[in-house]
């Protein structure tokens, strides 16, 4: 064997080992919602709906669907807590507004996603994004119409838009 193949083989091996291992071994760097930010989102959404005369409950979930903030609005119906959670869960999991999900599965009751826990085809939740990345979601329930729930949710996210980067 000449010197060259050795060198090439050595280089290749080094490249493989160093390249593969170091890339896979790196920790994942994630940005996540803080509690104060999540509270601002939820409180703003509830306040917006209240100013329009709607009592709503709200949930803000984090990256893994964990509940960061859960708020039961005054004079809301009991199901609004569950519903705002499920909408938020749906939005986080699907990475789209829960209303968009509802549209997507309309006319397809066998859609697999509908058979997962906590998925609900109901408008009123939006994913919380940093660029293209979904780091959580807010779900609102209690207004007379999912479009109104969603509009309130949006004001919550808009309030902290400058910090979502």
């Amino acid at each position, binding site marked *: 064997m000449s010197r060259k193949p050795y060198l090439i083989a050595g280089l290749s091996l080094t490249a493989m080992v160093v390249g593969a291992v170091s890339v896979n071994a790196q920790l994942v760097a994630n940005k*996540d*919602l*803080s*509690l104060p930010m999540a*509270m601002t989102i939820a*409180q703003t959404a*509830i306040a917006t709906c209240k100013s329009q005369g709607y009592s709503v409950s709200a949930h803000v979930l*984090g990256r893994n669907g*964990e*509940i*960061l*903030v*859960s*708020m*039961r*609005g*005054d004079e809301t119906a*009991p199901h609004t*807590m569950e519903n705002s959670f499920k909408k938020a869960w749906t939005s986080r999991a699907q990475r789209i507004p829960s209303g968009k999900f509802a549209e997507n599965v309309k006319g397809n009751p066998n859609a697999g996603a509908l058979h997962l826990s906590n998925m609900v085809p109901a408008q009123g939740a939006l994913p919380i994004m940093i660029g293209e990345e979904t780091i959580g979601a807010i779900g609102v329930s209690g207004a007379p119409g999912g479009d109104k729930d969603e509009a309130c949710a949006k004001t919550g996210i808009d309030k902290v838009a400058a910090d979502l980067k």
Partner: protein
Amino acid sequence: MSPTVHRIAGLSLATALACGLAATAGAQLLTHKDLSLATATAIAQGAIDACKAQGYNVSAHVVGREGQVIVALRNEKAGLATYENSMKKAYTARTLRMSSGKFAENVKGNTTAGQLYLTNITPAQGALPIMVGNDTVGAIGISGAPGGDKDEACAKVGIDKVAAQLK
């Protein structure tokens, strides 16, 4: 009819009237005061801030009259169990109408106390009932500080903050 009989009849009538009044009283709707979301949020936030000022990251739950969750706040810097634990402590304080620490004391050495077998009851300090006079309208539970006594102290700050509203 003798006077005695009259008197007995009169007493019966009075009793009947009393019963009638009682029935009326029983038919009335109940009136009570409940925590608003704003008050509940102020309590939870006050408690979390108090703990944070001491260097403790805690999660908090405020539950209402029926033990329903009004506000739940997960502190991203607190342990995973703190979310569940703060809810259970709050539920315990609400339903037993005493601090969860007092309950813990009460069942110390009595591991077969019936209440310990109920869902969401926990013998752990860190929650206080929220009172309006003698009426328990809810509770706040805190978890995450190094010691239930510290959790409870923060919970108290939260309630004290809205004391003027609790009447």
